[in-house]
């Protein structure tokens, strides 16, 4: 199953990012496991320098901004 990780130490923008991701999943009907990663060490280990960030199956798709709904839709349905 597709695994989506939302990285962010818990700022408002990170919450919005998670909402966008969940909405994209709901709209496309794609099944995916969404994990919120807020531990700073885990963030560094994943190579994240700017938050919020989103990774799909361990590949970072966006960092430093809230992704747009269309973008997330494209990521989750591109396979």
């Amino acid at each position: 199953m597709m695994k989506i990780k939302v990285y962010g130490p818990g700022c408002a923008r990170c919450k919005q990012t998670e909402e966008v991701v969940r909405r994209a999943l709901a709209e496309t009907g794609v099944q995916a496991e969404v994990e919120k990663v807020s531990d700073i060490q885990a963030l560094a280990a994943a190579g994240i320098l700017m938050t919020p960030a989103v990774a799909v199956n361990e590949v970072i798709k966006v960092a430093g901004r809230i992704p747009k709904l269309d973008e997330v839709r494209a990521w989750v349905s591109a396979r």
Partner: protein
Amino acid sequence: MGQPGSAPQSAAWASTTGRRPRFAGVWRPLLAGAPLLLVWWLVYRNLAPFAAWVTYQVLSLKPGGLARSVEFFVFETPKVLLLLVLVVFGVGVIRSFFTPERTRQILAGKRESVGNVMAAGLGVVTPFCSCSAVPLFLGFVTSGVPLGVTFSFLISAPMVNEVALVLLFGLFGWKVAALYAGTGLMIAIVAGWTIGRLHMEGQVEPWVYSGPVAGHTQPGVRMEWAERLRYGRDAVREIVGKVWPFVLVGIAVGAGIHGYVPEGFMASIMGKAAWWSVPLAVLIGIPMYSNAAGIIPVVQALLGKGAALGTVLAFMMSVIGLSLPETIILRKVLKPALIATFVGVVGFGILIVGYLFNLLL
């Protein structure tokens, strides 16, 4: 991921395949942009007569305090907003070339002095938000960027930013903007170097160095020009969208001071003669957290009423460059002694800048 074209929408990573020539896609938006730029220029040039016309003809105000305030507001607000849109767009496009990953790669393993200078410079062009100061700090330090070099970056990134420079240029002229940028970079370089010399690696929370080495993000990516321009447009939407209320309020307060506070009123409080005004300005400025957009118009108005430039610069730098929220965030990775050193060294640098300009100008 990594298959070309699988995510045409993603802005930063994993998009292009490199089949198209380097500047493909730049011409059409450039052609579309030229008339816009012309309109921008015409509007910008005619703001002063427009403000006078609104003040004295439309509102038919008598020359005096109110008229001065209104004219100031009607002139400065559109001017600053126009400059902001243009510069934030330009800087947004430039920033699409400098991701933090790339900056880190450049700085990793650099020798101190050279590294400090480069880090301060890169701090200006690399996208940065104090909310991600901690992951950035971790990512830099664990991948071999020296501590002092990391600090040079962390000092210059918030202090010498495009919003501050636009406002300084718009309200004070290019000389003050250049002075601010130059001395801001200087402080970032020297303070970072000093922190490096003090060998305070022991004052970083121990788990930082014992944790896993920072992973490396995606391979180098080439963006197409259309994407870079979109990056610039998004920057305008995000930054100008966030900052404009502060600009309005700041200019409104500035306009009030402009019209009603008597000339020379600030001379006794923030003038050259008052030696204690510089340290006081720094002390008041550090815990204050306002973005550049709100503070600069106010400060500009104070300058017109007899405040000394050095004192004013020091105040601005400490408000913009050192903020309480950022130090609280950094407490997660730094021990109090290092935070105190950081604030102390930077504050001291700002103090010197303040005195220097009061002496020279």
